[in-house]
């Protein structure tokens, strides 16, 4: 009977069993792909950080110091007096929920504890328990929880699942910055030796050799020369960047991936071509050979320690001011912290463009100018000869990297440059760009391969908007001004929108830049043929 058949079908229950999502016990073994490997003991030892040991989050015993609860309690007490913002952020949240659905990790995972408000609540509940009268008396009723091993593990899981991107803070009516809560929570975790290797190893390398990868001066030089050769092949121009040259006008600091890995190297070639074509008197430093600063993801002391080399090298080389390349969190450190941490750099001059005479008054105090500000000013003054048709094989959109956008407000300059060097530029939807931009999912030290699933979840909101412009406008290139983005977005695109590549802004400048004496260009800086076999009209 048909009727019977149908009833039988209805009997089947396809509803999945509900899990207890509020259970603080994280099963690390079952959640591979969503956490990062812990820091190797040798790196902690090298840096003099507490509790060096080799361990795994899947171990039952995390080998914590015996008095770990006390250490964290004291650490929190100290930071509550030191940082008024922390106390404020912990006290004033009214749980309005405006931030709840703004985190890319929440949007991509649906895990409630990736809501910024609940992420912060992990720390806030312990703060209430230990430091507020209501919490001490009322306990759970007042949202207070004593710090147990299970909660500490939850901290490790979720505070290393926040890229400190600050998107949530844009929407909070009280200006609560969950990124800062994460930063402080990570400081506390560091006190008992809970850190991740993808952060701590670059920190150790930076401390030793000046850059994340541990590249020594001779290899630094070799790498730059390799890129100079490549550049000559495409353009016929031999650029001559100097390294550690005393008396140069500018020190130029870039993220290390720009001279070591694809696709950053093409951006680096763009910088070199630009500076060469204008005859700018600049030098690179083999020790300030990293703009990035993973100290930002460790502790304020570590950030200061690593940042110091920039001013140190500027002083040693006797330059007038500092130019900085396309890096994300490097600019957060420079714009928000460098001046108070390691400044004032009164041995330097207030930056003035040697080509246009423009004074960069915004950088009068830090003495450090973003290359996009520098280049936008050049274009505005008509100092560059550009042939945007050399980028006609590309249909470009721009990803605002979290730090330059939200921590610095560099929104117009890269767009102005892009519109001058490409003919096909398309914006992604409004609620996914500028201050509201979506993170790449791999910042703050989370861009490692063992954390891939979390990265891909976190990258969904960004990739979703890229897919939209790809389908609507045929966009095939995602430009950005951050080295981590260039690496992380490349992977993200491979999974979500494989038709779209990733580049820096100055790579496209390098393509379009018409330089006296160059050979007729048939390819872009990557060696890809130009559209219609042309692009050398002005050369």
């Amino acid at each position, binding site marked *: 009977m048909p*009727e019977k058949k149908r009833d039988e079908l209805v009997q089947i229950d396809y509803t999945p069993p509900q899990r207890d999502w509020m259970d603080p016990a994280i099963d690390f073994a079952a959640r591979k792909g969503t956490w990062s490997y812990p820091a190797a003991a040798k790196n902690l030892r090298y840096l003099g950080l507490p509790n060096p040991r080799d361990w795994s989050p899947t171990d039952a015993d995390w080998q914590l110091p015996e008095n770990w609860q006390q250490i964290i309690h004291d650490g929190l007490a100290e930071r509550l007096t030191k940082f008024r913002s922390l106390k404020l952020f912990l006290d004033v949240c009214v749980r309005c929920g405006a931030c709840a659905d703004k985190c890319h990790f929440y949007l991509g995972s649906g895990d409630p504890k990736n809501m910024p408000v609940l992420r912060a609540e992990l720390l806030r509940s312990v703060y209430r328990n230990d430091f507020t009268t209501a919490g001490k008396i009322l306990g759970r009723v007042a949202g207070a929880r004593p710090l147990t091993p299970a909660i500490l593990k939850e901290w490790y899981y979720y505070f290393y699942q926040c890229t400190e991107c600050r998107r949530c803070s844009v929407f909070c009516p009280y200006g609560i910055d969950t990124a800062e809560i994460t930063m402080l929570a990570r400081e506390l975790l560091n006190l008992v030796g809970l850190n991740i290797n993808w952060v701590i190893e670059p920190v150790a390398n930076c401390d030793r050799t000046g850059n994340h990868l541990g590249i020594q001066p001779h290899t630094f030089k070799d790498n730059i020369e390799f890129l100079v050769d490549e550049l000559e092949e495409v353009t016929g121009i031999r650029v001559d960047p100097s390294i550690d040259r005393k008396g140069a006008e500018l020190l130029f600091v870039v993220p290390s991936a720009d001279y070591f890995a694809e696709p950053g190297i093409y951006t680096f070639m763009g910088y070199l071509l630009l500076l060469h074509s204008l005859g700018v008197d600049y030098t690179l430093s083999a020790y300030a050979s990293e703009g*990035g600063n993973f100290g930002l993801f460790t502790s304020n002391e570590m950030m200061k320690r690593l940042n110091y080399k920039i001013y140190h090298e500027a002083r040693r080389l006797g330059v007038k001011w500092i130019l900085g390349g396309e890096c994300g969190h490097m600019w957060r450190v420079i714009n928000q912290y460098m001046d108070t941490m390691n400044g004032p750099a009164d041995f330097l001059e207030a930056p003035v463009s040697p080509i246009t005479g423009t004074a960069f008054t915004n950088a009068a105090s830090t003495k450090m100018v973003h290359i996009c500000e520098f280049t936008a000013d050049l274009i505005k003054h008509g100092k560059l000869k550009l042939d945007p048709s050399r980028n006609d094989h590309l249909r470009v959109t721009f990803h605002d990297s979290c730090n330059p956008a939200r921590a610095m407000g560099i929104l117009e300059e890269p767009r102005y440059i892009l519109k001058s060097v490409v003919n096909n530029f398309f914006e992604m939807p409004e609620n996914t760009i500028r201050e509201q931009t979506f993170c790449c999912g791999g910042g703050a030290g989370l861009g490692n391969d063992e954390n891939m699933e979390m990265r891909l979840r976190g990258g969904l909101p960004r990739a979703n908007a890229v897919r*939209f412009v790809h389908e609507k406008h045929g966009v095939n290139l995602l430009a950005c001004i951050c080295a981590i983005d260039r690496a992380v977005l490349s992977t993200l695109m491979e999974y979500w929108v494989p038709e779209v590549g990733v580049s820096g802004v100055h790579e496209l400048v390098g393509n379009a830049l018409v330089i006296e004496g160059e050979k007729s260009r048939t390819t872009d800086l990557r060696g890809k043929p130009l559209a219609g076999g042309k692009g050398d009209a002005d050369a």
Partner: protein
Amino acid sequence: MNGLLNVLQEKRKALEERWAELVLASYPQQSVPFLRQERDRFANPLGSTIRNEIAALVEGLLAGADADVLATHLDAIIRVRAVQDFTPAEALRFVFQFKQAVAEIAGDDAAGVPAGEFLALHARLDELALQAFGIYVGCRERVFEIRAREATARTYSLLKQAGLLVDADEAGGPPACPPAEGRS
């Protein structure tokens, strides 16, 4: 014309909604209201993907669309679920939940529908499930491919630094390309 498909066609909206509801219920309870209610596809990529692609699947299934058309929509959903906190079974359960949605939505209207028509629809769904299996495995392979690519890139950098690599240049081939680096 097929009676069951007629009934379902008339109630297509309800069928789409119900199926999408069942899929959304696989996410943590606290998140379901947001995933269900926020309609902006950029503010809620997960919820929108599920709702829109489920709608497209229903349309395709009822209209007898080609396998490759269905595959596009399946892919969009599975690509997301393949990297979320699901076991393989949980990730793909949504395909079979179509049966539940059909049974509930058709209700008494399908009382007179011959069993054969249900079986035919279920056979289509079985095909869809097999397709889904392939897509899921493809997504998981992709994840490990890109992980491997990043890891190899790191080793490559280290070997190159140590001077242990012979460039294809020296070996007489095209110039070696520096790999993408996962860390800036």
